């Protein structure tokens, strides 16, 4: 019987081995996804057991946990509605959003970098205090951006194009996150419902996610880049510029937008077309390049990808499977092209940075409650989007657009500014979406910016990128440059 008993022993060993493996899988390998499951109450209770870390701007908390006398020990407190698109909210009942969500591990002290602290807590019984996060945001610039947007709905996002360090990020309207952080169940629920059903959708972060926008003429930067990268075009290459142009295979007639002064000459160079934002030459240029070439260039600028800053952005879209006329429309940012302000900022920043795209980031440092540095963000290159010479060509056209083109309201006295406006149509009778994207100083960029204003800035179809969005961008850039 001995060999049989040995075989039974082996079978028992296998049974236990399967238990060891299954336990490891559940408690370690899959633990993160289970812990982050929205149905998991433990994470919520746990989150209130220790003091959650603060989110800081220039060492001042914009979100912090203060002692409360109820069962949860700590109440989350937010300062400044201009930061709501950054912090998001941390609520007992509605979960968490934005940085409160994407930095949750660090804020609640569960970051793997705090392993030794956790080990210490295991033996001492003192819970790990959450780590605090210092943002890259400039308090003054953020305030200027918030004020400059005024009563408009829209977003401003600005960063150093050479590092990807985000200096300001504003989404309007904002909301008071304290309304959702309250521990009072019914208050929190009714406040949440109100915010959620408001027509102006304050819970949406317009800078990086939520509804994407039609880019309009700012997309010409992508098409011009594709043209120069193809090697078949230079800024001096000319294109036919009839006053009216019927898209091939359709009866759709396009004209150059009323803002531009493209009338005149029967032929224009690409440089002039971008400076004056002419739709007709760009439609023909796009058709000549083909949607595949534009699509490939868009992809190189990051279209189709989600970026973690560390909140995840919504990927921008350049459509596929278009016919020739749709390709023509897409070439000046109409049809189904949809972008986030962050995406346009990344396009502009790549142009500003000699063609190299940097990873945008919001977090400078993460440190423990006793100020030990846990993490420090170093600039990271994502990819080369365009060649240095293409970047130089597009930059010069953008300088011209601000200096003596249709993007003139981006100009700052004494500083060379590169920029491009956009006025995107949203269908018959709908107000326009207004854009400005650019950087300054053009030859030694310190700041790149993207501004979007919804609803024609309240001016319906008479609002223009240059009249509404460009001045906002100028104020923000001035604040950064101290001019």
């Amino acid at each position, binding site marked *: *019987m001995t060999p049989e008993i040995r075989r039974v022993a082996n079978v028992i060993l296998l049974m*236990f081995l399967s238990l*060891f493996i299954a*336990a490891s899988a559940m408690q370690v390998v899959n633990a993160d996804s289970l812990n982050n499951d929205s*149905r998991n109450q433990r994470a919520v209770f746990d989150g209130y057991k220790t003091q959650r870390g603060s989110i800081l701007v220039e060492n001042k908390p914009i979100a912090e946990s203060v002692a409360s006398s109820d069962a949860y020990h700590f109440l989350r407190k937010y300062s400044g509605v201009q930061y709501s698109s950054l912090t998001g909210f941390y609520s007992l009942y509605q979960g968490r959003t934005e940085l409160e969500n994407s930095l949750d591990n660090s804020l609640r002290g569960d970051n793997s970098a705090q392993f030794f602290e956790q080990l210490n807590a295991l033996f001492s019984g003192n819970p790990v205090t959450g780590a605090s996060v210092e943002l890259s945001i400039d308090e003054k610039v953020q305030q200027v951006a918030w004020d400059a947007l005024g009563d408009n709905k829209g977003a401003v996002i600005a960063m150093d194009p050479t590092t990807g360090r985000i200096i300001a990020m504003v989404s309007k309207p904002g909301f008071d996150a304290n309304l959702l952080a309250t521990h009072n169940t019914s208050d929190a629920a009714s406040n949440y419902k109100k915010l959620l059903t408001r027509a102006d959708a304050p819970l949406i972060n317009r800078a990086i996610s939520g509804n994407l926008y039609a880019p309009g003429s700012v997309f010409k930067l992508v098409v011009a880049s594709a043209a120069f990268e193809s090697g078949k075009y230079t800024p001096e290459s000319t294109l036919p510029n009839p006053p009216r142009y019927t898209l091939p295979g359709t009866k759709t007639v396009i004209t150059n937008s009323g803002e531009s002064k493209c009338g005149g000459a029967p032929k224009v160079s690409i440089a002039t077309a971008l400076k004056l934002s002419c739709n007709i030459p760009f439609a023909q240029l796009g058709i000549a390049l083909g949607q595949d070439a534009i699509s490939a260039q868009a992809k190189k600028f990051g279209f189709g990808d989600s970026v973690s800053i560390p909140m995840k952005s919504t990927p921008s879209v350049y459509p596929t499977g278009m016919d020739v006329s749709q390709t023509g429309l897409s070439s000046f940012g109409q049809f189904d092209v949809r972008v986030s302000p962050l995406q346009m900022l990344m396009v502009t920043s790549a142009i500003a940075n000699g063609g190299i795209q940097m990873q945008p980031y919001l977090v400078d440092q993460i440190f423990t409650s006793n100020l030990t540095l846990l993490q420090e963000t170093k600039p990271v290159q994502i990819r080369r989007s365009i060649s240095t010479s293409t970047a130089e060509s597009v930059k010069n056209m953008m300088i011209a657009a601000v200096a003596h083109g249709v993007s003139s309201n981006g100009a700052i006295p004494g500083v060379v500014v590169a920029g491009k406006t956009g006025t995107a149509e949203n269908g018959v009778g709908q107000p326009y979406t207004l854009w400005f994207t650019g950087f300054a100083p053009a030859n030694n960029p310190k700041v790149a910016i993207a501004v979007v204003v919804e609803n024609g800035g309240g001016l319906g179809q008479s609002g223009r990128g240059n009249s509404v969005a460009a001045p906002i961008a100028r104020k923000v850039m001035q604040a950064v440059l101290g001019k």
Partner: protein
Amino acid sequence: MAKTKRVRVMPAKRNLELIMLLFTFGVYAFALAQVQLATIQVLNPEGWFFWSVPVVLATAFHILLRFKASDADPLLLPIGFFLNSLGVVMIYRLDLAKPLSDLDRTVGQRQVIWMAIAMVIAAAILWGVKNHLSLRKYIYISMALGVLLLILPLLPVIGKTVSGAHLWVNLGPLSFQPGELAKIALTIFFAGYLTSRRESLSVVGRKVLGIRIPPARELGPIAFIWLASLAVLVLQRDLGTSLLYFGLFLVLIYVATARAFYVFVGLLMFISGAAIASKFMSYVGGRLEGWLNPLDDSNYSAVGGSYQIVQSMFGLAHGGLFGTGLGGGLPQIVPLANSDFIISAIGEELGLVGIFAVLAMYLLLVARALRVANAHADDFSKLLAVGLGFVIALQVFIVIGGVFRVVPLTGLTTPLLAAGGSSLVANWIIIALLLRLSDTLPKAGTVA
């Protein structure tokens, strides 16, 4: 005139046992203190009750072993005490987590009393059964007793249904799972029956395609056990119990006859039988769905769906590698945390490390049983020891495997850990029998 001097042999095994017992007593005291400090923030004198009753009884058991079974395996008692006391700690901890309005805050105290009763019964059996070979005389009584115990929960009035399974019996204020005791009776019966029939089961028979097929009359008992297992499955509505008995039988018939044929045919019969039976039972489909896709929202929110196992998964993930520490987690969120899901409570508060320790303890317990089986010379002792060891191993696999989603969830109890008197009594009896089996090993040199 030569004087004969009586040589006093130091009971080395008992001394080893004492050292390990003292260690487990210390761990137990430490765990109780931590539970109190973590949940009610003070050391409550009721901890003395929790600690002293089992400790006094285990010490008495140890002293009994010095006199009545001094050669018995030194690991069995400490392992049994360790697992049982860990279960008490968790159950007590879950009691403390209940609101003061909850009337059922004494599960831990009752568990301590049951632990005491179980150890007394085990000690009595150790004392009463001088040699396990005498059990051979009672194999048919064992069979009758086993079958009777299995049928009890199905009887009207005293039978009780808990979450769909008919595994319980109500006797006034007490309720118990007779199936737990049936597993011992049936192990004794299988071991005795197979000892007498192993010749005819293993040798006789025609060869077909190189495989020796036993004659039909020899297959009769196997078919009977198979039908009985399926009857348990259909009538008691519990796959775990059914699988436990059938698996036990297959392993013993394999060890007795050395013929894998029985295992293959048996497994095939069981799987096909269970598959057909499940077609006619609506609850099986839901169970399977909840097992395979527990996180699916439709299973999660279904009545009798995967809510329980998902909460347990959250708890286990929450515990992670090192656990939250005793009293630091929220194991009370899982329904039935102190019985069916006690392993999940342990996993949450003691982490994967704690789970590994518990599994290692079970594995060690089973290994000691198999070691005893190997060392015995006679068939009955071998089969009995293998049977008792395997029944623990299989039950651990089915229950803990259910929690970790290796197999579907069933209604079996976690040996020595889960709240419940009958289960404790049964498993302490198994420990007593293994102690007796290990004490009667042939001395080196007396048997070839």
